[in-house]
């Protein structure tokens, strides 16, 4: 669900979804309605804690009377709307979008995408071996996190999380235009020269692993990263009185990264630098 403040109970409106009548609260998106009806649609730029930029276009559906397809993640449902989620037309666009993405960036650490590529019979290789790719080198310029923009799908989530939707630090932005557009800090400087406060909220929302803990990045490089061997423990941050919830990801008795539950009504998955990265003292066993 997109986060909508719990206000006065909202009126229900009725529309049809793949021929079936459904009801959704006023203001709900088509995607919300689909998910409550037990239908899933692929999404990448949509995030559970952010207003989506609707830039990836993998969630497009057909709305009767609309000239183009519409993004289910952002279009609010209207009474009487007739929505079709699984038409040939919608599936075609999703398939092409997946092919375009998979042929230009590295999606190896994007959850679920392998399944969608298969489901939509996407063949990213058909653009040939010379198809332009991002070809970015990972930016390793500090000890806390790595920016591997070769995996970036430009979903704008990190920009929104760092900017006016959560953190209000505005350390990163989209720069350049078209295929050359990238996420960067001012003057394309190293992160250490930027306004970044290392809250890691951008890592929390990144759907592709383009932003990752240095610990995870190093372990992946060494071939020791093993999610199946990890446990997750949610606890309370001990640093300050805010009391944010932390989820410690532990592998071989070492904390390998820290996330935060998105459904926490206070923090919505956001932390500060101490809660996110300040765990070494826990592991100081001397």
């Amino acid at each position: 669900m997109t986060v909508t403040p719990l206000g006065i109970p909202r009126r229900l409106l009725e529309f049809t979804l793949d021929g079936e009548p459904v009801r959704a609260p006023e203001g709900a998106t088509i995607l919300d309605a689909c998910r409550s009806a037990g239908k899933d649609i692929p999404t990448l730029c949509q995030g559970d804690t952010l207003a989506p930029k609707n830039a990836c276009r993998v969630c497009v559906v057909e709305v009767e009377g609309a000239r183009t397809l519409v993004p289910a993640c952002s279009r609010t449902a209207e009474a009487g709307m007739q929505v079709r989620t699984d038409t040939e037309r919608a599936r075609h666009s999703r398939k092409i979008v997946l092919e375009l993405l998979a042929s230009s960036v590295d999606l190896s650490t994007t959850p679920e995408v392998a399944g969608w590529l298969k489901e939509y019979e996407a063949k990213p290789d058909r653009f040939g071996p010379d198809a332009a790719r991002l070809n970015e080198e990972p930016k390793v310029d500090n000890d806390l996190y790595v920016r591997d923009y070769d995996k970036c799908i430009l979903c704008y989530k990190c920009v929104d999380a760092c900017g006016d939707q959560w953190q209000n630090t505005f350390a990163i932005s989209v720069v350049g235009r078209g295929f050359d557009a990238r996420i960067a800090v001012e003057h394309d400087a190293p992160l250490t020269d930027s306004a970044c406060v290392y809250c890691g909220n951008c890592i929390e929302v990144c759907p592709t692993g383009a932003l990752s803990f240095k610990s995870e990045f190093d372990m992946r490089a060494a071939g020791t990263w093993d999610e199946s061997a990890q446990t997750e423990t949610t606890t309370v941050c001990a640093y300050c009185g805010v009391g944010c919830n932390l989820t410690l990801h532990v592998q071989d008795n070492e904390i390998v990264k820290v996330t935060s539950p998105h459904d926490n009504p206070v923090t919505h998955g956001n932390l500060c630098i101490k809660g996110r990265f300040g765990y070494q003292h826990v592991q100081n066993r001397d």
Partner: protein
Amino acid sequence: MDLHFGDSKPTDEERAAIDALLGPAESSWEGAARDEMRASDLRWARGGRAARERRDLLLPGLHAVNDRIGWISEGALDYLCRRLTVPPAEAYGVATFYAMFSVKPRPATVLHVCTDLACAAAGASELCAGVEARLGLGSGVAVERSPCLGLCERAPAALAVRAGDPVRTAVSAPATVERAVLAASAPDSAPEEPSAALAVPQAGDPALMLLGRVGVVDPASLDDYRAHGGYTALRQAFAIGPAGVIREVTDAGLVGRGGAAFPTGRKWQATASQPGHPHYLVCNADESEPGTFKDRVVMEGDPYSLVEAMTIAGYAVGAHKGYLYLRGEYPRALARMEHAIGQARARGLLGDDVLGQGYAFDIEIRRGAGAYICGEETALFNSIEGYRGEPRSKPPFPVEKGLFGRPTAENNVETLVNVLPILTIGAPAYAAIGTGSSTGPKLFCVSGSVERPGIYELPFGATLGELLELAGVRDRLRAVLLGGAAGGFVRPDELDIPLTFEGTREAGTTLGSGVVLAFDDTVPLPRLLLRIAEFFRDESCGQCVPCRVGTVRQEEALHRIVGRTGADAAADITLLREVGRAMKDASICGLGQTAWNAVESAIDRLGAYE
């Protein structure tokens, strides 16, 4: 906001350029030198909302630096950010969005050489090569290949811009290597551009309604404008009131001339009736569609008509402020409009009390900086507001939430100037011109393989052949591109297509912004298609995947099949079609949705790769 600035400092010149726009910094909090402790440093309360409300000065600020220095350094950008309380990362994102700005050092003089359709057909590649050979490293001139400069009637074209105080510009069109080099090396002594009337082959014809004054009035003289019927339409508007104006425009059947063909009366009515205030009027003079130059000719040849038309439109929709978003590559149109607005203000035709009627209206010009996408209406709002020129998703529509989140009517230059004859001759007489659903006169931008390229005014309903006849079509016509790069090709045997919205639609093509680009059989079609693909790849804002990556994949496929036909091209044509279909269906805005149209039409109608 948690703003962090680096320690790069502006040079004195950069600071002066920014201060000339914003006034001197009052406190060290916004970048004034910390030479002495100023009283204002201790009690500084601007920041916060007051400062953020000046964010829309970001684009003018970037222009100020780029105009004076030629590029935008870290120190200059940081200083501008301090002055406006804009996060440096965001400002950097904005500065890198526009083609006319550079964030890397470059020579003070930039020569933009057009490589687009009409110029390509007129030998732009030889021109580029020749200019580059003469202006190599050390010449002090940066040569940049440019999309259409809106001078297609005089192709090939080049525009020189020399940074300084003031910035100097010179246009060379039709350009030779010699003349383009001269414009770049001595912009001050370059010959004056020919009068705008030369772009109007019909100039002087008394039957012209939109172009009637071009070449007849002195574009610098308000009195001359008035002597030629100027400001009678505004008086009529005041006589019938805002609702009356909207009724006339609606009854006249005026449809937008910017490309999307939306009924103007409906747009105005919807804006006027919004409860939220203030309302805004925006005139879209971005005109970056390759092959389009009509708005430039109107602004250069009859600038007061646009001032008057914007005033009427503002009055009708209940706006007190109008923005004229003028493309950055039009120095002469900018100068003429600035002059006209200044004169109108001095004479009480803009300002607090227009014509003594108690209606306040003023116009502010905003310069674009080289981005076709900023012609898309919501991208244009973002651009004015100081954000990247990325389109917003609709709904909400501009009439409800437009510029600064307020109800906004946005119209093309040509659409607005049509309001003048509507009010002077009346809706019924206007509606009698043209056809039932395409009423009034229409401007066509004719260029390419014709004897007399230029802007033609014809009533809707004339056929393509009639228009080409007027312009002197040459033998061996191979194809006509209708509607610009986002439009479609038609064959020489389709010249009886009526030039109306419904007629072109029926023929499976579009009128778009009124472009008619003729190509004879000396123009290599596959190269032309490649140029169109390259244009869209360059101009995609990069926001959505189908457009950002799709335009690249299409360009690659077209490269592969440049010299091929039939079965050799079949697999790539399938790929082009599949990608094109998704771009049309799933892109956020009109750019991605139409980027494939022209190439598709060349394959389907011209048999480009058969």
